[in-house]
């Protein structure tokens, strides 16, 4: 049921859309019919797939940077209160400043490819940082006492206690970061706009907009949201596979 119902809704929506466009004879540069979008997707696949690859690579780079940066910062903060108090406010500042406003600045100071990755990183690292911090602070007190009793070194405590305890939280953070790094990449590409030498999907959307190639805009948009869904699904799957043996969130109802 949970699979069938959304598909029925989708089919009905597309059918209505197609019908309205044909019935009122709406021109493609105003609103293209779904069938036309789909045809454009296939015909322009050469251009669009290259753009998709560019955007995905940027997203991946931003995501990896955010994951490493977020986890590493959380570990540093966990080891040193001094560092945490000095730097955490700036992490928050970076997070609350809209990235669309930062992107043009970054484009001035950095080469475009770097700027796009940095944008993806800025929006994506904070959920990883805050979730990891939460996880590292949620260690069972008795287990911590046990490690103390057996004279575990700080490194042992980190590897065998803190990181495994924090893992569900870290994976939750990564799941959010995956979608956000796509958004960051898109925002930076849009900001670079037609002036940029980019070739990502967002650039393709902006470019098609100027050329009134509306069907291609829709096709690129469709690819972007499919990419977002796939990224989220992959991360959710990884999270499930890693946690399924022990964590409440990954257990079935019967157990």
């Amino acid at each position, binding site marked *: 049921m949970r699979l069938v119902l959304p598909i029925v809704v989708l089919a009905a929506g597309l059918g209505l859309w197609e019908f309205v466009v044909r019935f009122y004879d709406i021109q493609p540069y105003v609103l293209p019919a779904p069938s036309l979008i789909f045809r454009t997707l296939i015909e322009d696949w050469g251009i669009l797939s290259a753009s998709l690859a560019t955007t995905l690579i940027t997203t991946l780079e931003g995501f990896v940077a955010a994951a490493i940066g977020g986890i590493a910062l959380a570990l540093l903060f966990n080891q040193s209160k001094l560092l945490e108090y000095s730097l955490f406010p700036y992490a928050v500042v970076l997070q609350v400043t809209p990235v669309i406003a930062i992107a043009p600045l970054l484009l001035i100071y950095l080469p475009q490819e770097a700027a796009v990755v940095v944008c993806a990183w800025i929006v994506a690292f904070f959920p990883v940082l805050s979730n990891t911090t939460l996880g590292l602070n949620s260690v069972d007190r*008795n287990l911590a006492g046990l*490690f103390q009793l057996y004279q*575990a070194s700080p490194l042992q405590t980190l590897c*065998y206690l803190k990181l*495994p305890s924090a893992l569900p939280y870290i994976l939750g953070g990564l799941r959010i970061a995956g979608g956000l790094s796509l958004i960051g990449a898109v925002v930076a590409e849009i900001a670079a706009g037609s002036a940029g030498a980019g070739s990502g999907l967002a650039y393709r959307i902006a470019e098609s907009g100027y050329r009134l190639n509306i069907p291609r805009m829709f096709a690129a948009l469709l690819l972007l949201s499919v990419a977002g869904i796939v990224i989220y699904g992959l991360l959710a799957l990884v999270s499930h596979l890693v946690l399924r*043996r022990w964590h409440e969130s990954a257990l079935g109802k019967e*157990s």
Partner: protein
Amino acid sequence: MAVRLRGVTKTYDSGVTALGPLDLDVARGEFISLLGPSGCGKSTALRLIAGLAAPSSGTVEVARSSAEARGTHSIGFVFQEPTLMPWANVWENVRLPLKLAHMPVADADERIGKALAQVGLSEFVQSYPRELSGGMKMRVSLARALVTDPDILLMDEPFAALDEITRFRLNNDLLALWRNLGKTVIFVTHSVFESVYLSQRVVVMTARPGRIGSEFRIDAGEPRGEEFRTSADYAGFCRTVSNALAPSYEGRVGA
């Protein structure tokens, strides 16, 4: 002498004096229970002996001879909750103290196998904590405390959360282990019946701050079993100990 406390007090940062002054001697190989109402500092005393907390004044001496000479840890601690790592299976949970001590894998494997056999869990090495019942989790916790072959076993209300049938069985198993292994056991409980059944000596503590109210030697034929639990002697000991405990729950609010 296995453990010697002299004039030990513990005052928390909040200014509450939880314990003492307390003098206590525990002989090598003795099974002693600390019995008292909630908040009488008996768990605090145990944590002080384990070295998990430092006394505010007084001295805590723990004989650290044979087990440390063998290169393992001299104290085993069983918490009120099983305190297992949910992400690790039974085998890995029991292995933890040895892993933290960098014991070679071959030696460790032999000890883990032995410890798990002692608590009757040899068939469940691959299970994860969530797949086990409360009593079995407690057995894993006990095996983990035994795996370093400690001289002293500290137990903090280990069976308090279990149902009565499981508790009786674990009581019997614990007694059998104590007889076979000859360890010093300090057992914290708030159950008169459990303390009398298990120990050679019952120390009744008073509340706020925790001090020793009275002491009873439980001279009963060994080995004890179910027939002791239903004997007149047992009932007599329980009555005496209950009477000693009575002042701490008569008309004392918050005790």
